[in-house]
């Protein structure tokens, strides 16, 4: 690999913990620690896991026209989003394909915080920044910002032990400005695991301090990209580059209702999505459960009888379900109800699978009520 890989402020911490580092989206990131992906996965489902997500990007957009601008640029409405809330959103190209999926935080009536994926980050900054009104300020704060994800049923208790009042922690998909050990933190109740969890944004210079502080809690263990992937797969959450890319529309990925295409709002890509011919979904995302722990991975052809009807976009063993699962795209015109039989070709053998409802894992604590609220 000739390309110089970026490292997060925590790279030395990961190495000291015995992490195996791999290239990911232009970054050198830990994929697993010594205990292994399965142990990290289960620790997150049962206690609390800490993820270094410093590679992701953060933008600040501010101005009287900021809400109207983002309403024009992003696929889900922004103008009606309440201050203090987070909203999952998409940046589309003119053909309606997904340039990136992101979360929009409304900091104030005229100020937004956008959290984007690492790979598309530089392109997002140019695209979104380039489509704003001249009076709207845009700042790419990615390099100066650390992001840690604390995820698991004990996550709120961990924050409580660090001095935060658990009864006043943010509600699901909401955020607040707070401080941990004197470090100002934007704290949102969001995540990518299906468990009760929080995402912490703060100055990169404090990354090592808060990482060590959170890991000092006996309930918390570090977890990495490997476990992050099995946790999100069990929830059926899309991963950019797998379930979504520039050739996939949010409608095909299952998010059509969120776009409120019946409303008159125009946004980049909306003309194609509303076009009865060009916008007609060609394929749709489904979940599939396999017979045992043998997995069909990204790229595996999906067969219905002798005919290939689609391709796996993500697949692995689901550690909390004791079997392999997969997500994949199939032709939109096929009736494939939950329970329908399919075959997945893993390159060696065709594995039997059935169409399964998403999420695969339904027992997550993400929306649990916090005591004292």
């Amino acid at each position: 690999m000739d390309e110089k890989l970026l490292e997060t402020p925590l790279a030395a911490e990961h190495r000291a913990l015995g992490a195996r580092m791999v290239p990911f989206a232009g970054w050198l990131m830990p994929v697993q620690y010594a205990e292994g992906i399965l142990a990290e996965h289960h620790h997150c489902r049962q206690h609390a896991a800490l993820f270094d997500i410093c590679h992701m990007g953060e933008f600040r957009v501010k101005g009287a026209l900021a809400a109207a601008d983002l309403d024009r640029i992003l696929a889900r409405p922004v103008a009606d989003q309440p201050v203090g809330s987070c909203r999952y959103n998409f940046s589309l190209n003119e053909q309606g394909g997904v340039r990136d999926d992101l979360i929009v935080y409304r900091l104030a009536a005229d100020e937004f915080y956008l959290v984007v994926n690492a790979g598309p980050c530089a392109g997002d900054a140019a695209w979104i920044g380039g489509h704003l009104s001249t009076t709207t300020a845009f700042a790419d704060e990615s390099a100066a910002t650390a992001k840690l994800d604390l995820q698991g049923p004990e996550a709120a208790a961990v924050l409580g032990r660090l001095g935060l009042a658990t009864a006043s922690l943010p509600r699901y998909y909401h955020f607040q400005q707070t401080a941990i050990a004197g470090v100002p933190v934007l704290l949102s109740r969001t995540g990518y695991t299906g468990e009760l969890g929080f995402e912490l944004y703060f100055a990169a210079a404090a990354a090592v301090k808060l990482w060590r502080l959170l890991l000092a809690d006996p309930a918390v263990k570090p977890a990495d990209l490997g476990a992050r992937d099995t946790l999100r797969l069990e929830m059926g959450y899309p991963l950019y580059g797998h379930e979504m890319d520039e050739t996939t529309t949010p409608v095909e990925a299952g998010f059509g209702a969120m776009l409120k295409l019946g409303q008159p709002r125009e946004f980049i890509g909306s003309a194609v999505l509303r076009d009865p011919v060009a916008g007609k979904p060609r394929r749709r995302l489904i979940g599939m459960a396999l017979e045992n722990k043998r997995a069909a991975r990204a790229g595996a052809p999906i067969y219905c009888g002798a005919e290939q009807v689609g391709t796996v976009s993500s697949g692995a063993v689901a550690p909390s379900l004791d079997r392999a699962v997969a997500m994949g795209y199939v032709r939109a015109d096929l009736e494939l109800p939950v329970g329908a039989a399919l075959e997945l070709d893993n390159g060696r053998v065709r594995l039997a699978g059935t169409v399964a409802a998403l999420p695969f894992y339904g027992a997550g604590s993400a929306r649990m009520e916090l005591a004292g609220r």
Partner: protein
Amino acid sequence: MKYYAETHEWIEVVDGIATMGISTFAAEELGDLTYVEMPAVGKAFAAGAVIGTVESVKAASDIFAPIGGTVSEVNDALAADPALLNQAPEGDGWICRLKDVKEDELKTLLTAEQYQKTIAE
């Protein structure tokens, strides 16, 4: 005496019966193993043929027969609990046994010392 293949299998022949598996190094590289596809008992394999597959959370890898032979036994305990491959890859995590082995093919393999050198590179 244990021999190793460059493809990271180990094999040891005692009284004409070979026991084989994957090396400690390979098991560590693969990470948590979640599925092992065993060969059928009675099936004959030539040296270098795909005899089975191991799958970890992240990937699947073929297992190759280090020397020719006929499968006489597979490790049922491993099929039931693939984590044995992480716990004791060169012990209780053996994969299968071969009879009618071509013992002269052992000299095409690496000794433990030679194998350690190749993985250190």
